[in-house]
């Protein structure tokens, strides 16, 4: 701790420690990128309860006909319930679901069942997520993110060697707002070291 406190800008030790940090983070991000690709190349594995999902079905419907799939999507028609599946890259299918659930248009429907030819899905289990519930979830999640962000900014600080350490005394909410304003006005990035 004393070693960290004695570091000042321009100190070679500080620059080294900073570059070590950057290097370590880049290394970890590299690992993560490898994992994104490794996981992305895995196929569904029904024998281990890992089923094709909505994006997979949307991308290649015929590949999964006869298989059990686990999909969810917005209800676009009722009588019978029809959901839209898409993979976010331009592939979309609409699937008619054989179920006794009666969702309204705009609700979400999650279905586990067997995929039939001609855009039919025999539901073995299905449940409805009413329209608005998703809104609630997003709102609560945004609040949570904001709460944690404010707490992190109040209780932690970053020094010039990019080390993150707890503050002795937390920033007041007013200090936080002032700092934000200062940054907006002058764009400066103060690495103030606490006593």
């Amino acid at each position, binding site marked *: 701790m004393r070693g960290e406190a004695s570091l000042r800008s321009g100190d070679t030790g500080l620059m080294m420690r900073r570059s070590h940090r950057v290097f370590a*983070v880049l290394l970890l991000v590299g690992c993560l990128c490898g994992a994104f690709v490794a996981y*992305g190349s895995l196929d569904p594995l029904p024998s281990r309860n890992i089923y094709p999902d909505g994006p997979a079905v949307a991308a290649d419907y015929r590949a999964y006909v006869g298989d059990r799939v686990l999909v969810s999507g917005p209800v676009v028609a009722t009588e019978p319930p029809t959901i839209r599946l898409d993979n976010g890259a331009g592939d979309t299918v609409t699937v008619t679901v054989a179920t006794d659930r009666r969702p309204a248009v705009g609700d979400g429907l999650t279905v586990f069942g067997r995929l039939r030819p001609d855009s039919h899905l025999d539901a073995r289990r299905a449940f409805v997520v009413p329209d608005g519930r998703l809104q609630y*979830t997003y709102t609560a999640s945004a609040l*949570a993110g904001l709460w*944690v962000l404010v707490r992190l900014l109040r209780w932690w600080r970053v020094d010039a060697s990019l080390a*993150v350490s707890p503050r002795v005394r937390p920033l007041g909410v007013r200090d936080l707002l002032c700092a934000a304003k200062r940054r907006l006005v002058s764009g400066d990035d103060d690495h103030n070291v606490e006593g």
Partner: protein
Amino acid sequence: MPDLLTHVLAGYTLATALRVRFDWLSPAYVTVCMAGALLPDTAKLYLVVPDAAVATLLGVPFSWYVLHTLGGVVVTASVGGVLARRADWLRVVGLLSLGAVSHLAADGLLLTGSGHSKPMLWPLVRVGLPTPGLYLSTEPTPLVVTGVAAVAVSLFVRRVRPS
């Protein structure tokens, strides 16, 4: 996932309860556990940039879901450990992991269509474990439960350990 507020409250409750045992666990460190509870849902980036969109762009298979697995959590928590000052790295990694693992555990109780949770233990094992299906991800009940727990634990700890 239940909503993130539920996860963050669970992280808060766990870390606050640990204050009974660990002197150093100040609100700053409780915050780290709360941040850890957010980590797995960075996988929700797929809502902004879908897997297939990235895969098309890069020409390789791609899945954000990694961030919601044990392996992903180990890496993201390590990023926190690397950024923390030397004296704190172990505490930061530990608390981020605690928050993140509590998130995965809570998600393992969710009601799902197949009756199995997603393969969150990857790369250790790739299997969908049976889930008791206690709640839907969009239900407010877990939020109420964790909210009450957070207040109760916080009051209790304040009484036992006035800081």
